[in-house]
């Protein structure tokens, strides 16, 4: 695998290091001189200095080959959008992953077809919700391309689904239960799985059907 990593901050440098350890061929691009010089000691010829939104810098890094994947991991969201677009539109790079620094910009990435994305703030917030739930339905993972999401709900004593088998639930169309976590053990949910109070249930569904799912599993 050949990967170009744009942005040599903590995220980019660690990703480049991990990819190299996996045996991938990597070119890391960093614009700032101080950072570049530090990176050069470790990455030697595998790091190049320049603005990764400039075509000639990307070309020097081998984007015309093209690489199997471009990782746009700079600290600037506009740069990450443009790097991903240049890679795909101009050079036919098959895959690009972009970092979202400010979660308020997520909508721009989605609108412009820059996908998949990774946002540390959103991931941390999802974990916070998982650890200290404020809501009865927790979003664990969004599969944007597939238009699916994975959520977690906890079954209570007075939930309508408590004491029912999965096959007896009128789940919304396009929704499935994946697994049931009980007493620290997870089991794949099948038709005969009985839901009990205290169960943590993972479900996969189309975004927008959360309320229907909530009604079936949680509310009378």
């Amino acid at each position, binding site marked *: 695998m050949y990967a170009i990593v744009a942005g040599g901050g903590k995220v980019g440098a660690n990703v480049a290091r991990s990819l190299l350890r996996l045996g991938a061929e990597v070119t890391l691009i960093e614009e700032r001189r101080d950072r570049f010089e530090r990176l050069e000691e470790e990455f030697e010829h595998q790091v190049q200095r320049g603005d990764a939104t400039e075509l000639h810098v990307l070309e020097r890094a081998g984007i015309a080959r093209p690489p199997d994947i471009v990782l746009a991991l700079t600290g600037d*969201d*506009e740069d990450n959008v443009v790097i991903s677009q240049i890679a795909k539109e101009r050079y036919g790079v098959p895959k690009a992953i972009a970092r979202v620094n400010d979660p308020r*910009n997520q909508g721009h990435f989605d609108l*412009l077809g820059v996908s998949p994305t990774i946002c540390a703030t959103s991931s941390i917030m999802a974990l916070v919700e998982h650890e200290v739930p404020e809501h009865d339905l927790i979003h664990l993972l969004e599969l944007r391309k597939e238009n699916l999401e994975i959520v977690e709900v906890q079954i209570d004593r007075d939930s309508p689904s408590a004491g029912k088998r999965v096959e007896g639930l009128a789940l919304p169309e396009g929704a499935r239960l994946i697994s049931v976590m009980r007493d620290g053990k997870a089991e794949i949910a099948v038709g005969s799985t009985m839901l009990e109070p205290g169960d943590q249930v993972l479900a996969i569904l189309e975004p927008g059907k959360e309320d229907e799912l909530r009604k079936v599993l949680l509310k009378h």
Partner: protein
Amino acid sequence: MGTLGLNALIIGCGRVGSSIALQLQREGWDVTVVDENEDALTRLGDHWPGLFLVGHGMDVEILREAGIEDADAVVVATNGDNTNIVVGQVAQKRFGIDCVVVRVLDPARADLYASLGMRTVCPTKTAIDTLTEAVRACELPIPQRSTA
């Protein structure tokens, strides 16, 4: 109210953005200007009749407040090429504005995004052409080459 009944939104009020704003306003447009820095308002003179909002062009709420939904033309001219490219696409694709003009200083990116359907304007390219032409216009005597 402008005499034309047309709304322009200018994002980025530097030397370029402010001059475009003033020009369009003189021509009868209703002009709204957005800039991150409130001091940029001084570039519009003492009696700016239009709206001026402090905020970033990536902020959809600011764009809405600035009336992007009713804009007939959007000019994106901040000092960041990539910001302009992204904000320009948001104006085109999210808000459906047909007339979006985007300043891109880097000729390579200006060409690329023009080929993808964006009205990019590259002052660098214009400057290169104009300056080259000005050198040619000097009509200097061509020196004899030495045959050393």
